[in-house]
């Protein structure tokens, strides 16, 4: 028997649940959240970035969180949305990777497989009307091929050369369309960093849940590298000149 069994509304089943606490409800809103993730393909692999903030509503609650997870030697996962749900998913993926390690048969789980597995979990959860409140970007190099895929709480999936979640969908994607789409094979690491910093800077200026302490990950044939937290140079002096937004 599970030693940790607490009687909480969501653990109750059947008439008891309806009698004592009203109808059974599932997650209807995220609580502690991370904002955008931005990712795109470049010449040597894929690059991804996310800041280190986990907000509690509008409060900048946890400012040293890592929202980029190294799944295995070829795959990285970027997360936005509910951090608790992410941690649950993280443990799930770790279990999968532990199983792979135990098999010890030289058949590594590739990025595509990780993406497929993650998508199945997300779609399964939403179909049970009990979603994990996240948007994920999976990136990596699978058999020499760069892989970048998106999946969210609805189980929606798509793959593209450049991707973003959250506010990044509105603010970073236009930049990526212009600077990455169709050029993924030419972009050097240096340029990729510049593009990424520009995206993250715009997000920082406009997205009130963004934070100027972020990490960048790259996956190349050599493996996964996640940077230490760093900050972007910003210039707020012309903020005064912006008028007409209800100020």
């Amino acid at each position, binding site marked *: 028997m599970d030693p940790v069994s607490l009687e909480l509304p969501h653990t109750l089943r059947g008439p008891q649940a309806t009698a004592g606490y009203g109808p059974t409800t599932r997650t209807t809103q995220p609580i502690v959240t991370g904002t955008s993730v931005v990712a795109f393909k470049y010449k040597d692999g894929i690059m991804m970035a996310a800041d280190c903030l986990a907000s509690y509503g509008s409060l900048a609650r946890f400012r040293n969180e890592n929202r980029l997870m190294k799944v295995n030697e070829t795959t990285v996962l970027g997360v936005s949305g509910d951090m608790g749900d992410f941690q649950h998913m993280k443990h799930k993926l770790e279990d999968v990777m532990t199983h792979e390690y135990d*098999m010890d*048969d*030289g*058949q*590594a*789980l*590739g990025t*595509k*497989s990780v993406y*497929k*597995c993650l998508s*199945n979990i997300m779609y399964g959860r939403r179909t049970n009307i009990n979603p994990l409140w996240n948007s994920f970007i999976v990136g990596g190099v699978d058999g020499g091929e760069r892989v970048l895929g998106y999946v969210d709480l609805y189980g929606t999936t798509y793959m593209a050369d450049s991707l973003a979640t959250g506010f990044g969908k509105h603010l970073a994607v236009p930049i990526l369309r212009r600077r990455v789409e169709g050029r993924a094979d030419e972009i050097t690491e240096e340029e990729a960093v510049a593009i990424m910093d520009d995206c993250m800077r715009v997000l920082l200026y406009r997205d009130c849940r963004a934070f100027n302490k972020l990490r960048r990950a790259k996956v190349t044939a050599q493996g996964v590298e996640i940077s230490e937290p760093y900050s972007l140079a910003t210039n707020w002096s012309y903020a005064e000149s912006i008028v007409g937004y209800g100020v």
Partner: protein
Amino acid sequence: MFRNQYDNDASTWSPQGCIFQVDYASEAVKQGTAVVGLKSKTHVVLVAVKRSPSELASYQKKIIRIDDHMGIAVAGLTSDARVLSNYLRTEAMRSKMVYGRALPVGRAVSAIGDKAQTNTQEYGRRPYGVGLLVIGHDDTGPHLYEFSPSGIVSEYYGYSIGARSQSARTNLERNFERFEELSLQELVVQGLRALRDTMPQGKQLDSMNTSIGFVGMDTKMTILDGDGTQPYLDQLDEAEAMDTE
């Protein structure tokens, strides 16, 4: 027949540390006609002799496709093999559904090995009365495994199970070091040579009773029966003619 008090069920050890019911189940494998499996660097092949219960009946199926990358050959109780092949197919599909990847062959055979082990430990069950040769191709290349009623699975360069399979194994042991570089066609012929050694006096391999299966790097699991086997049988004859010269 010999009889002792320790051989009634699979949940009793003999004083020597044997489980007779498992040993007896292994005998059932020898009741089936022989199958031979062998692999090169790129491909893995199964060849089998089919048996027909009467002249009016068709031949019993010996090679079963599991997935595009995997197949099995059967010796022993065919109905037990069907249970196992169904299970393998389910597992192969699950791997495709969940991870989008072909089920690694070693994991597939381990899965049926684990399933078979349970039948050797609990009262009221009997071990599977069938041996399988499992072939498949995955990220680590071509593989050939033997599954036995004890639940033990082993990987081989070449192997044979079923009636008079010892002769085929002797043939394989003599030649297996050369298999690595062989082409698919040569590999099939080499397999047929080993298989021929298991034929009883006065019986020949022909297109009616021979079954061939193979899979490889760029080759999906393929099963040849009837006329499809004729070109290979012709080559076998040619090779034999060369030998006798």
